[in-house]
C-alpha cells in the first residue's frame, strides 16, 4: 500500500514537473536515497559506522565510467563490473576493519576513504583531477534513458526496489540479528549469531548499494571528478542517515531529500549558505534527535493524543 502510494507520487512528479532542473534534482534525491539506505543498513541497523563510504560510491562511478568511456563496454556490463569490484573491495576491507569498533572503526573507514580518493586523483585511467569525460547515457533495449524524465523513473525504480528489499531484510531473521549486534554484540554472539561474518555481509551489501548509486550518478552526469567522492561526501552520507533517522528505511529517503534540496534552496543566502545549512542541521538534531522521520511521526502522534499522555515522549 505504502509502495503504491510512493510509486504514484514518483509517477505524478515525473509527469507533472517539466523543468529539467527540478527533474534532475529529484533524480539526485533518488541516487542519494540509495546511498543513505545502504549506509543506514550498516550504521542504523548494525551499528557500525563508516566514514569512507564515498569510496564505494566512487568505485561504482569510476569502474563503469572507465569501462564505458575508455573501453566502450555496454553500461550494463559496466554496472556488473562496478558491483563485483565494490563487493570484492568491501569484503577485503571489511575483514580487517570490522575487527574495530566505535571511534576506531570510524578512523579506519576514514583512512580507506582517503586512500580511494587519492587513487581516483592519481590514476591515469581516472583522468586525475581533471576528471573523466564522455561517459555514455543509458538505454534499456530501444528505450533511451537520456531524457531527464526517463532517467528519473529509472533511478526511482531502482530506489523503490532497493527500499522494498531492504525493508524485507530488516523484518527478517537477518534484520533482527543486525539489530541485536547494534544493541549488544556480546549478547548477540551468545544467541549463536556469527557477529563477525554478519557485519562483513552487511558492509558488503551497503557497499553494493553505494556502487549502484555511483553507476547511476556517472551515467547521469557523464562527467565525474574525484571531488564528487571525497571525505565531505562520506560525511554528507552519514548526515543523511542521522538527519533522516537511524534504523529507518524511510528515514533514509527523507534524509536524502533534505540534504539534496537544502543546499540548492539555500543558494539565496549566497555566501552565508554553509552557515545556514549547518544551523539547520544543528537545530534538527537538537529538536529531533531521533531523526526527521521518527521525530515528525512522534509530533504527529503526540498531537493526536491527550496532552497529559506524554508517555511515548519519555521513552524517547
Amino acid at each position: 500500500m505504502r509502495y503504491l502510494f510512493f510509486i504514484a507520487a514518483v509517477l505524478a512528479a515525473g509527469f507533472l514537473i517539466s523543468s529539467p532542473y527540478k527533474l534532475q534534482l529529484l533524480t539526485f534525491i533518488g541516487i542519494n536515497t540509495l546511498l543513505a539506505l545502504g549506509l543506514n543498513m550498516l550504521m542504523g541497523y548494525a551499528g557500525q559506522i563508516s566514514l569512507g563510504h564515498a569510496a564505494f560510491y566512487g568505485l561504482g562511478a569510476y569502474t563503469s565510467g572507465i569501462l564505458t568511456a575508455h573501453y566502450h563496454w555496454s553500461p550494463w556490463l559496466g554496472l556488473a563490473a562496478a558491483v563485483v569490484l565494490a563487493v570484492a573491495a568491501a569484503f577485503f576491507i571489511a575483514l580487517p576493519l570490522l575487527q574495530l569498533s566505535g571511534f576506531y572503526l570510524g578512523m579506519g573507514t576514514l583512512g580507506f576513504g582517503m586512500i580511494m580518493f587519492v587513487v581516483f586523483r592519481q590514476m591515469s585511467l581516472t583522468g586525475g583531477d581533471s576528471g573523466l569525460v564522455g561517459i555514455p547515457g543509458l538505454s534499456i533495449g530501444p528505450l533511451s534513458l537520456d531524457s531527464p524524465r526517463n532517467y528519473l523513473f529509472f533511478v526511482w525504480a531502482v530506489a523503490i526496489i532497493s527500499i522494498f528489499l531492504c525493508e524485507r531484510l530488516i523484518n527478517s531473521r537477518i534484520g533482527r540479528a543486525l539489530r541485536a549486534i547494534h544493541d549488544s554484540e556480546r549478547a548477540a554472539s551468545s544467541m549463536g549469531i556469527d557477529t563477525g561474518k554478519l557485519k562483513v555481509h552487511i558492509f558488503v551489501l551497503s557497499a553494493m548499494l553505494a556502487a549502484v548509486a555511483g553507476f547511476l550518478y556517472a551515467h547521469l552526469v557523464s562527467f565525474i571528478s574525484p571531488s564528487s567522492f571525497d571525505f565531505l561526501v562520506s560525511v554528507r552520507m552519514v548526515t543523511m542517515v542521522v538527519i533522516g533517522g537511524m534504523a529507518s528505511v524511510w528515514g533514509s529517503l527523507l534524509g536524502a531529500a533534505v540534504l539534496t534540496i537544502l543546499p540548492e534552496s539555500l543558494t539565496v543566502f549566497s555566501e552565508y549558505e554553509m552557515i545556514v545549512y549547518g544551523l539547520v542541521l544543528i537545530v534538527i538534531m537538537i529538536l529531533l534527535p531521533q531523526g526527521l522521520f521518527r521525530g515528525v511521526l512522534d509530533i504527529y502522534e503526540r498531537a493526536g493524543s491527550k496532552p497529559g499522555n506524554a508517555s511515548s515522549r519519555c521513552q524517547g
Partner: protein
Amino acid sequence: MNALEASQETPLPVVRVEGVCKSFGGIQALNDVTFDVPAGSIFSLIGPNGAGKTTLLNLVTGSFPADSGQVVFGETMLNGRKAHERVALGIARTFQNIELFGSMSVLENVLVGQHVKTRCGFLGAMARLPRTIGEEREARNRALELLDFVGLLDSASQRSTDLPFGWQRFLEIARALATGPRILLLDEPASGLNAVETASLAELLEKIRKSGVTLLLVEHDMNLVMKVSDRVLVLNHGMKLAEGSPCEVQANEAVIAAYLGRDKAGPGC
C-alpha cells in the same frame, strides 16, 4: 531427583571440565579446575567474589580460551570453537548484568534467540518465499510458548527494557532457552531479585530441568543454591575447594572457613 538417579546409572556428563587454567596478566583466575556436570542436574558454582566462577562460565561458553586444560561438551571437544558455534551445539547462557536487546520488543528478543534454529539468509529474507514465511511463523509460535513458559506472555509486545528488573531476568532466560540448549548457564540469576521473585526463579529452574535442560548456576544466594542444586562446586582463589551435594558442602570445614561461615545452617540438613 529422578534425573540425578538416572545420571548415576549412566554417568554421562553434559559438560566435562578438565584441568582448566586461566590467568589474566599475572593473576591466576583459575588453577587446574576439574569437574563434571551430570546430565539433567542443577549444578551450582559458588565461592567468594573473585574466586573465578564467572571466568569458568566464560570458558565454557567460549568468551575467551583457556590457557591449558580442556572443556568437553557431550563428546565434542570445545577448545578452539567460537562462542556462537557453541550455542549451535547446545550451550546457552545469561549474563550477570542483564543484556537484553533494548531496541526490541520482548517477543523479538526471544525471536533473536532462535537464530540458530532458523535458516533464512539475506536472499531468503528478500525473496520471502513460502518456506521463509513458514519458518517465521513457527519461530513466532515457539517464542510465544517460551514467553508463556516463563510467565511473560502478556508482555510480549512491550519494549524489553521497559519490563521490571525481575521480569527482564526471566526474559533473558526465555531468550536463552530459545536457542534450544542442552545446558543453560546462568550467571547470578537471583541477584537483584526480591524474595518473591527468587522463589518463582527457583520454580522456573525446576521447570527447566524437568524439560530436559541441564543447568549450571553461578550464584551467591545460598538459600536458592542449597534448595535447587543437585551438586555444588566451591571455588576459592581459582581452585576447587570442595564438591558434593548441598549438605556435604555445607558441612565441609574448609568451605565454612573460606566462604559460608559458621552460622549458615542450610535448609534440609
